[in-house]
Structure formats: C-alpha cells, structure tokens
C-alpha cells in the first residue's frame, strides 16, 4: 500500500462514470444528484487517503466501497428512501462472494444502461450530451461548457432539465427492454457522434483538437458495439468513421498548432493502427441492406485514408458518396464537403456552382468553414478580390487560434485582381 502506484490516465474521470452508473442502478435515476454527490465525495476521500498512504492495489474496488458506504449513510440520514437500502445491501453480499475477481466485468454494461437513460426521448436533445458527459464521462460543468462552446450556467441548466425530466418520468434505471433500447439507439449514436465532432472541430481556444472528447466518444461506441443491442452495422459504421478521422489527428496539427491543409498532410504521420481498426469496423458494418449516414461518412473517410497520395484520391467516388449522403441526410455541411469533392473532380467553378445551389435559407452564414471554402475556390480561379472578401468574413467569424493563423496566411497571398497572371493561381 505504501508503494506509489501510478493511476492509469483518466482513472478518476472514468471511475466517476462507472460509479455513477453502478449506484444509479441501486438508487434509481431520480437520485442522480445524490449519486453524483457521493461519487464526488468518494473521490475526495481517495484523494486525501491515497496522497497520504499511496494508491491501494484494488483502487477501483476501494472507490466503489467508499461511494456505496457514503450512499448508505446518506439514505439513512434521509430515512425516506429506505426502499433502496436492501438493494445496496444486496450488492454488499455479492461483493464478498468468490466472484469478486470478476467485479469489473460483471458490471460491464451498467454504463451503457446509463447512456441509454441519458438519451431517453423525454430528455431534451441538447441536454442529452451534457448529462452524458457529466454522469458517464465525469466531466465538470466547466469542462462541459468548454467542450460544447457554451457557458457554465447554460450547461448547469441543461443538466438540471435532464434530471428534472428523468425524475418526473420516474424512470427506473434497469427497465428499458431490448426493443426500447433499439428504438433509442439512434439518439445514442447522435450523442456519441456529436461528442466526437465537438472534439474534432474545436472552434475556439488554443487546442485544435480536443482529443479527450474524441477518445470518450470512441470509448462509448466500443462499449456499445460489445453489447447485443449495439452490435449492429450502424454502430460499426460509426466506429469505422471515428477511427478513420482519429487516424489523421496527429497529421492535422502542425508543431505550432496550426491546422495543416489536407493536401499538405504527411501521410506517414497518420496513425495506421487506427486505420486498421477502422477497416475492421467498416468490414463488419457492410452487412444487411441498411445504408446510414454513418456508412456513407465512413466510406468517404475511408476513401481519404486509402489513397497513397493526395493526388491519388478518388474524387469521383467521394463526390458520389456525398450525393447519396445529401439525399438521406441533407445538411449544408454535407453540401459544403460535397462541393470540395466536386471542385477536385471538375474544377473550382463546379464546386462554387454546387454551393450556389444551396437554398439561401439554409446557408450556414455564421460557419467560418463555409466562407473559407468559398474563398479557396475563388482563389483557385484567380479571383483574388472575391477570395479575400470570403476569407475576411471567415476570419471575422472564427475564434480558434489555429484557424485564424491559417486564414491570415491565406489572406497574405491575395493580390488585387489583375496584378498577377491567372495561371499563377494553383
């Protein structure tokens, strides 16, 4: 016990989520606030004890016992929720059984249950991510606010709204049956994917990629795929998609934190074990006749990973995939990415035409990427004035440091139209 033992990375955070899931099973979703309080208190006790005496062998078990005892104390004090006591006591007996060695495996799907509870259709969509990040991933209010680009107060409100709804519904933690779970799978995947995308496209601050969020999203999705309910092609496709994106993280960020243009990325810096994992998921996703947005997006990401050099990219295939994606999941961002593919396939003018076809009422005028792409396409046509106008708009809208640097570098190469011969534009 005296030997200092290194805790694995994110141990506290992940244990927070696991303990919340475990205790919610005994106390019910209505007591999420109590659950979080005792789990937090258990971590405080661990901090005090472990920093004095070192980390115990069975750190996870220590935390669970402490949190459970704190919960029992709290319930005794309340005396109003006595019905939950027998369930906690039951767990005490189980804990001392010879099965204790399998402790961690035995309760493997509790976090998954909690994920489905967080995605209950009664919980407002924008509250789902917040409550999932809090209870399952152990993020603080401030950390969630940073991740979701909103204020602490707003996150607090979303979490409270989620708790209120769950309380009103008197949702039992362990009630949803397989059919209900499958029905809620879409919402769960939406939350996981949102988590991942928030991690990929940070739009403010100094960190171009919030790796933690991406890692959490992949952790949740892998957990999902390991369970009967989530062991379905859609989940495999989402995992493939996330792996292909994650593979390119290291290459996307230059040493000074600037986002590296896709064309200039060093492909040898891609993480090939992520690519291999993605390929395995992609293969498993190609079963049945359902094609989801995740399948198509995974297909697109795979096309990018598969090309040995940028010049080898199969833009025809990618443009086709975007066309299909636009039909089943229309979104201005899909149009934007589709336009980029179109531009590589048929030239910048074709890309601009595709963007011009997007109905004005759904143009994401406040999204810097929209203007950045328009600027790039104009620039490649030699229309520097139009490029400059678009890039300035993009710069005005973006707060992320790496993106601002990138745009400034692009603006620096703009010349008033006519000063430079057309062919010098790439």
């Amino acid at each position, binding site marked *: 016990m005296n030997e*200092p033992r290194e*805790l694995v990375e*994110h*141990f*506290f*955070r992940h*244990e*927070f989520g696991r303990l919340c899931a475990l205790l919610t099973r005994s106390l019910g979703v209505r007591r999420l606030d109590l659950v979080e309080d005792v789990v*937090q*208190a258990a*971590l*405080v*006790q*661990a*901090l*005090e*004890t*472990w*920093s*004095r005496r*070192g980390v115990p062998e069975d750190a996870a078990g220590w935390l669970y016992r402490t949190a459970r005892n704190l919960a029992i104390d709290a319930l005794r004090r309340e005396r109003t929720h006595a019905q939950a006591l027998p369930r906690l006591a039951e767990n005490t007996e189980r804990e001392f059984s010879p099965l204790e060695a399998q402790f961690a495996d035995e309760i493997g799907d509790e976090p998954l249950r909690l994920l489905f509870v967080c995605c209950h259709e009664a919980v407002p969509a924008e509250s789902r991510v917040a409550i999932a990040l809090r209870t399952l991933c*152990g*993020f*603080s*209010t*401030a*950390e969630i606010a940073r991740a979701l680009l909103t204020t*602490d107060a707003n996150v607090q409100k979303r979490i409270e709204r989620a708790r209120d709804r769950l309380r009103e519904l008197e949702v039992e933690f362990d009630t949803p049956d397989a059919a209900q779970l499958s029905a809620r799978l879409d919402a769960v995947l939406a939350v996981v994917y949102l988590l991942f995308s928030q991690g990929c496209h940070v739009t403010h601050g100094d960190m171009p990629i919030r790796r933690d969020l991406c890692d959490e999203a992949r952790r949740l999705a892998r957990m999902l795929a390991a369970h009967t309910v989530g062991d379905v092609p859609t989940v495999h496709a989402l995992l493939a998609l996330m792996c292909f994106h994650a593979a390119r993280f290291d290459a996307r960020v230059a040493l000074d934190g600037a986002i590296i243009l896709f064309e200039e990325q060093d492909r040898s810096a891609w993480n090939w074990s992520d690519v291999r994992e993605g390929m395995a998921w992609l293969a498993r996703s190609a079963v049945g006749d359902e094609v989801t947005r995740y399948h198509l997006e995974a297909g697109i990401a795979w096309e990018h990973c598969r090309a040995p050099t940028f010049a080898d990219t199969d833009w025809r295939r990618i443009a086709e995939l975007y066309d299909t994606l636009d039909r089943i999941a229309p979104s201005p961002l899909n149009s934007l990415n589709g336009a980029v593919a179109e531009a590589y396939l048929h030239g910048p003018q074709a890309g601009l035409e595709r963007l011009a076809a997007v109905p004005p009422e759904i143009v994401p005028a406040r999204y810097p990427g929209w203007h950045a792409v328009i600027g790039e396409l104009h620039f490649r046509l030699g229309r520097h004035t139009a490029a400059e106008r678009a890039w300035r708009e993009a710069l005005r809208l973006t707060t992320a440091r790496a993106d601002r640097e990138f745009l400034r570098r692009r603006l620096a190469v703009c010349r008033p139209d006519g000063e430079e011969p057309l062919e010098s534009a790439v």
Partner: protein
Amino acid sequence: MPKFLFIFRHSTDPQSRPSPEEMQVLGGQWYAWMQKFSASILPGGDGLKPSGRSLKAGIVTDGPYVEAKEFVASFSLIQADNYDAAVAIARECPGGCNAIEIRELAGYA
C-alpha cells in the same frame, strides 16, 4: 524543533470543486509534496470526513455546516525550525484548498 499544525480549509461552493480529472492530477501532486517533505511531516495528520457534530451551549447540531463558506478538510503536523520554514513548506502545497492555517504547537501537553 518546533511543531506546527497545518489546517487545510476547502471551499463549500460546489462550483469550486475540482473535476475528477483535476483531482487525479492533485492526488499526484499531494503525493509528491508528502514525499518531498517526509522528514518534516510527523505522523498523526489525517483528512476529516465531510460531516460531523457541533456542540454549542449544550445543543448538539449535525454537520455539514452549510452556512460556512469553507470547512476544515484535513490537517498535518509539521516540524520546522521556525515559522518561515513552516510557511515555505506550506507554500509548496499543491492547489485545491482555499487556505492553509499554520499554528505553532504551544507544547503544554
């Protein structure tokens, strides 16, 4: 050598509670602090459970003391040559507590 009692106070404001991730970092920093000053830290220090009892004018009340802005979370016994040396040790404490009160033991007992 003089002995000092370090009284560590934490805020009761839930907003100021460190997140699990921050707590894990703090844990490592505290452990390093304890290792570094192991020759000065005397046995007997401990953390305190969050709630307790209070006896005032014959009336016992339950903690936690919600009205307080901060509460005593833990204490350590430190031996040091003088206040300056004791304060120097306290200064190197990791963050995470609002205040550290440093009191020399009077030596009556």
